[in-house]
């Protein structure tokens, strides 16, 4: 009885008695969710266009952020450093396409997955030997990102909205919207969707697969840079950030590997779900459940819709 009460009644009593904390939790969840969605977006972009499950997305986040900060430390002005970093990410995309993807074209998915692991290993060594392993401060102020918080009095308490979080939400939303427009209305975007539908058909109408791959990997690189700046501003830039990328995986199974809206909705659901779960139910079993809760949410969901929230229905034939 006591257990049931603790599970089913008490958390809701807490929510009711301190509504400001509930709002704060939801907000934190949303912000985390937006950032998860950003990482997941990087995965989705690449998976859609080339069927590669890109294990290297996490290290790309670190690499992009490190390059940015590293350049700044070498005396490059902040905004120029951003453009230079974009250039580096473009070079990276070209190199990966040329050295890794092109020779491996037409191989099974799992082989390409493995190849991205090779990229990860390489980038870890390469990034550390270039920039050193010590954590660096994200140059948030220099990039014009706000500091401090907006505190709103409401519901008998206060809710603090961090300006950096607001900025993260706005930038992430803008970015997602931009990508959606890009996919929907530009020539390249249409080509990308064509490739996602069928490689062979796209090839036959004269779309260059290689070019498309460079573009998606570059797009994933841009997403990685934005993610790196945002997460870096929340904590700092170090190789530990790579682990954060794993958070995007439950988002992916929830949202589907091929769906951009799925990544967004999935990200928000997972972000809010895990924060609520940890905050209200975590203490019952000792806390720290955030690390696996997201996977269980996604798993439970998956049993009912195996292709994810917005994933394409898989039709199998013999």
């Amino acid at each position, binding site marked *: 009885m006591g257990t049931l009460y603790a599970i089913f009644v008490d958390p809701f009593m807490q929510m009711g008695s301190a509504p400001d904390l509930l709002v704060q939790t939801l907000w934190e969840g949303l912000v985390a969710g937006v950032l998860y969605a950003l990482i997941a977006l990087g995965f989705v972009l690449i998976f859609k266009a080339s069927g590669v499950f890109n294990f290297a997305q996490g290290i790309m986040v670190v690499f992009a952020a490190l390059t940015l900060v590293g350049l700044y430390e070498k005396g490059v002005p902040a905004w120029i450093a951003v453009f230079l970093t974009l250039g580096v990410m473009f070079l990276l995309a070209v190199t990966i396409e040329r050295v890794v993807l092109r020779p491996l074209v037409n191989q099974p998915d799992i082989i390409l997955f493995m190849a991205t692991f090779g990229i990860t290993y390489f980038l870890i060594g390469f990034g550390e030997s270039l920039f050193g392993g010590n*954590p660096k401060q994200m140059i948030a102020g220099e990039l014009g990102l706000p500091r401090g918080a907006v505190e709103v009095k409401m519901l008998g308490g206060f809710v603090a909205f961090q300006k950096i979080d607001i900025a993260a939400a706005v930038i992430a939303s803008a970015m997602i919207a931009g990508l959606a427009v890009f996919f929907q209305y530009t020539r390249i975007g249409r080509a990308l969707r064509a490739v996602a539908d069928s490689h062979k058909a796209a090839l036959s109408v004269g779309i260059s697969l290689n070019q498309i791959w460079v573009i998606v990997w570059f797009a994933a690189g841009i997403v990685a840079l934005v993610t790196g700046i945002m997460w870096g501003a929340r904590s700092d830039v170090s*190789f530990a950030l790579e682990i954060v990328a794993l958070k995007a995986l439950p988002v992916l199974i929830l949202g589907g590997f091929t769906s951009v809206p799925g990544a967004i909705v999935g990200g928000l659901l997972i972000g809010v779900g895990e924060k609520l779960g940890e905050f209200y139910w*975590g203490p019952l079993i000792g806390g720290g459940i955030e690390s696996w809760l997201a996977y269980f949410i996604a798993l439970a969901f998956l049993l009912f819709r195996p292709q994810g929230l917005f994933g394409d229905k898989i039709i199998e034939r013999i």
Partner: protein
Amino acid sequence: MRRTSLTRRAARGAAIGALIAAGAFSVPALAQDSVYFANNAYRTGPFSGSGIPIGDGMRDYITMINERDGGVNGVKIVYEECETGYDTKKSIECYEQAKAKGTIIYSPWSTGATLAAIPRAHVDKIPILSMAYGLSASADGNTFPWVFIPPLTYWDGASVMVRHMANELGGMDKLKGKKLGLIHLDAPFGKEPIPILENLAKKYGFEVKLYPVAAADMQNQGSLWLSIRRDRPDYLYNQGWGAMNPTAVKEAVKNGFPINKLVGVWWAGGDDDARAGGAEAKGYKSLNFNAAGTNFPVIQDIIKHVVDKGKSLAPKDKVGENLYNRGVYNSMLVVEAIRNAQKITGKKVVTGEDMRRGLEALNITEARLKEIGMEGFASPVKITCSDHSGHLKAYVAEWDGTKWTKGSDWMDPLKEEVRPVIEANAKDYAEKNAGWPKRTEACDTPS
């Protein structure tokens, strides 16, 4: 007793003999007059932010001793780093490598590596120096003759935290009804202080709240700080490491937790950890047992003999940072132990077994600290055969926005609370590790 005093006399005689011989002929240090010291370092991986300054400090002090003094009494220290990336598998490899190369001492530099090395070291006869990390129970020298954990254990650290709280509140009796939150890495290292804090909480009537951080969520502490906002603890003790610390400081600033009530364990006292919080992190505290800054003869000597000659890996502005100085402190313990081992055994080139004796009788007095240029840098160190930690003093360091300053006086840990727990746990350890060797090593009286 008789035996020990005899050995001691013999040792002293031999030492004097060696001194005379060295003085009379002033033989230049031969190539074979060297000892090998393998140190684990992690300049790569997610924890490298803390590992790099520590490794630099250790390396530079040893280099300085070799450069300035030509080694310890003419014996050069061959120092080699083994890269672990803070990974237990690699640490075990490094241990095997160090053993194969005949290291005189093993410094694991991670709690996981220490736990894995303890059983081996007792068989291989290699002393482990786990300076203020590792297994707290290993402070019991009767059970763990080969492990040394000066100057204090995590349990002592937690008790210093309680004492600090009491000092600020105005007495132990004022602790009643207060709430202490423990933010900890959800791993053995992070969970170390829990039993002692719970004991103390019972005794002094305060409450302990636990806030575990999973390793995957080190940089993602949002919900944890919401819980802190809900529970409103009076003090927070942060048993964190690596990327977790700067994030915690940032989150504390963000969530409006009074930053001067947030106290980190000594490993949460990196300059980078505090810097992350920006100007608002002013007042962040961390326990400490070495001083930060370059204002000590020993650091000046390092700058003169190592850094300025381009023999250091550290950029000059990082010299004197808190974790750098802690590396220096650790190397100082090693060097003093070598010196002591030479004195006890009368040998110049000491072995691992001699080092164990040297460490066990280590007694670094205030005067000795002054001699080696460390006055005010650390508190005196005294290790005995039964007490391999010393449970020595620590203080609370305070971040003033740009550097670490001394935020309190040196405080003793609550030794009378900690010691029984240590002995009980040591006994337990020996029982669980069936076949644990009984201590057979003789005890040298400190000289």
